[in-house]
C-alpha cells in the first residue's frame, strides 16, 4: 500500500492533530543532522523541538501542492538558525581546523597552507550575507536541489540561482591568491 504524501498527512492532521507525528517520524533525523552540522549536537536537540512545534502550529498554511514537507521544514530551521550565528561561526572555525588536519597527511600541502586555506573558507562563508549563506549551505551541505532551496527559503528559483552564483563569485574572490582581496 502506498504511504500518503506529507501533504496528505498534514491535511489529515488538521482534523487529527496527532497524525502530525508521522511528519516527525519521516524527517526528524534529517533535520537533526542539519541542525547539528550548523550548531553542534546540544543546541540541535533544542532547536529540533522548536522547529517541530512551529511547524505544527503553522501546519494550516503549509502549501499542500508540495508533496514533501522537508524543504518547508528546512526553511523553518534556517530561520531558527539566524539566532545562533555566533555559535555557527565558532563551529565553522573548528570545522576549518579539522578539515585542514584531514587534508595535510594525504597531500603535499604544507600544514600551514591548508590551515590558512580552510580558515579563509570559513571566514568567507561567515562574510556572506545571510540569504546567500543560507542558500549556499542548504545546497552544499544538505544537498538540496535548487527547487528545494527555493521552497525552503520561499524564493523564486531564479533568485536562488543568482544568490548561489553571487556566493560562488564572492568565495572565489576571497580565496583566489591573485584575487582582489587575496
Amino acid at each position, binding site marked *: *500500500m502506498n*504511504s*500518503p504524501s506529507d501533504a496528505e498527512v498534514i491535511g489529515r492532521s488538521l482534523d487529527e*492533530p*496527532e*497524525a*502530525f*507525528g*508521522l511528519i*516527525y*517520524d519521516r524527517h*526528524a*533525523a534529517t533535520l*537533526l*543532522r542539519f541542525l*547539528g*552540522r550548523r*550548531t*553542534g*549536537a546540544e543546541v*540541535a*536537540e533544542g532547536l*529540533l*523541538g522548536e522547529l*517541530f*512545534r512551529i511547524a*505544527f502550529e503553522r501546519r494550516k498554511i503549509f502549501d499542500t501542492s508540495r508533496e514533501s514537507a522537508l524543504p518547508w521544514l528546512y526553511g523553518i530551521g534556517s530561520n531558527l538558525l539566524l539566532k545562533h550565528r555566533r555559535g555557527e561561526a565558532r*563551529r*565553522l572555525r*573548528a*570545522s*576549518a581546523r*579539522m*578539515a585542514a588536519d*584531514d*587534508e595535510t597527511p594525504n597531500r603535499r600541502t604544507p600544514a600551514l597552507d591548508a590551515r590558512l*586555506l*580552510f580558515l579563509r*573558507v*570559513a571566514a568567507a*562563508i561567515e562574510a556572506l550575507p545571510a540569504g546567500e549563506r543560507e542558500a*549556499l*549551505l542548504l*545546497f*552544499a*551541505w544538505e544537498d538540496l536541489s535548487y527547487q528545494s532551496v527555493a521552497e525552503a527559503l520561499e524564493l523564486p528559483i531564479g533568485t536562488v540561482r543568482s544568490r548561489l552564483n553571487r*556566493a*560562488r563569485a564572492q*568565495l*572565489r574572490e576571497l*580565496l583566489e591568491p591573485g584575487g582582489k582581496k587575496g
Partner: protein
Amino acid sequence: MKPVDLVRKLRRDAAFESAVLDRGKERLMAAIRQEVGPQRRPSIVPQLPYQDIAAAIAFLERAFGFREIPTARRVSPAGVVGHSMVEFGDSVIGIGTQGAHGAFSPKTAGTASHYISVYIDDIDAHYQRALAAGAQIASAPHAHRTDYRAYEALDLEGHRWRFVQWLREVPIH
C-alpha cells in the same frame, strides 16, 4: 578546487543518539495533545499492579509502543515510582504498586485473572516490535474468521496483552 567543493569540506556531522529523536517525538506529541486535546477523562481506567513500575513502563513503551503520560508519574521521596499512567490511542491504563488496593502482579501471584485487548493498525509491525523487545509471545498472530487478526504477549511480570487488528479497517500507513 571549486568554491562549493571547498565549502563541502567544512561539513562536519554532529554525533547524536536515537534517544534524542525519541525524546523529541515524545515532547512533540505531549505538546500536541496539550494544545489541541480536551483533557481526557475516561470513565473507566484499568489499574495494573507491578513489582517494578519503572521497569514495567520502560518495557511497555519499548515493546508495545505505549507512552507514559509524563505528568502522571508519582515518585516517593526515596525515588521509587509508586504510580503512573500509560496511554495508547485514546485510552489510558494505570500502572500501580502491587499490594496497594489488594491487587498483585502475576509474577507474585503466579496467576493472572484478566487480560487486556488493545486495538492496533498494523499487527505485523507491532508483533515484530514486541518480539525484538523480548516480549514473551503467548500466541503468534493468527486470523479469526475474516474479521480480525490477533496475537497475545506477556509483559515483564506476566500481564497478558491481546493485540487485535480489524481486517476491514484500512491501515493508516
